[in-house]
């Protein structure tokens, strides 16, 4: 198990990488996909090494895993199907 401060270094490094990518490649089509992956990795690091969900009850493991996965999945889905989502949700919004 990695020391906590190594996890902190990874989280900090990924944060600075995200900012650099956003500044340098803000119009790139692949940026949302890469950002989605980084978000998931950061969430996983916190859940695995800070919260220790791998040792927790199944409910807590699944709750945290689901929450961490939601935004990255939504980023990917809206990246590919944003216009469709806008059409469908317009039906509900009116």
């Amino acid at each position, binding site marked *: *198990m*990695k*020391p*906590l*401060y190594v*996890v*902190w270094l990874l*989280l*900090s490094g990924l*944060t*600075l990488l*995200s*900012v650099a*990518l*956003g*500044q340098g490649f*803000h*119009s790139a089509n692949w*940026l*949302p996909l890469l*950002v989605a992956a*980084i*978000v998931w990795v*950061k*969430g996983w690091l*916190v*859940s695995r*090494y*800070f*919260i*220790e*969900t791998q*040792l*927790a*009850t*199944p409910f*807590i493991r699944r*709750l*945290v895993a689901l*929450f*961490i996965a*939601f*935004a990255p999945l*939504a*980023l990917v889905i*809206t990246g590919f199907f*944003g*216009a469709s*989502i*806008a059409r469908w*949700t*317009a039906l509900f919004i009116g």
Partner: protein
Amino acid sequence: MADLVLSPGPAQAGAPRVPGNKGIWAGITCEFIEFLVLFIVYFVARSHFPEEFRQGSTHLSPWAGTVITLVMISSSLCIAASVASIRAGRRRVSFYWLLAGLVVALGYPLAKYLEFRWNMAHGIHGDSGIFFTVYYYLTINHLVHAFWGILGIGWVLVRHYFGAYSAEDYSGLEALACYWHATDIIWLTIFPFFYVLA
């Protein structure tokens, strides 16, 4: 630093456990559900107004978002180290890690205040467009949750000072840690929404 590894106590190894207590996880579940709803609002708004969301982040200060993220990550480290230390029976070290976690965490509302002041000076208000409406709604909501967490850190710090926690019983400290880490995860998700993706 060699003991900065979170490992379960001997009695807990191998059996699924509830980190902290069930009450805090009821609260964390509600917090997650709340922010899932807000994230859905973000993604629906982003789908309806892609150009506004593409342009919006260029108006915000990336440094503010970066500083807040590093503050949240660092305070999480301190609080995780506090839990690791109390597990190892090092109460005084645990207390000082928790104190450091509180001091670092106070950087978040300070950074937010400075960011909002900068925003106002640059004409970025809640009605400056859909991107900024969603931005203020999500980030202020998170700030409120973080504020509760800061109050919780303060409370646990006082209890820690008066010897409420030990290597055999630190569930209150661990519960606070879980809440703070959950709030950290939420911010790590929010951060790219407004400061990275254009």
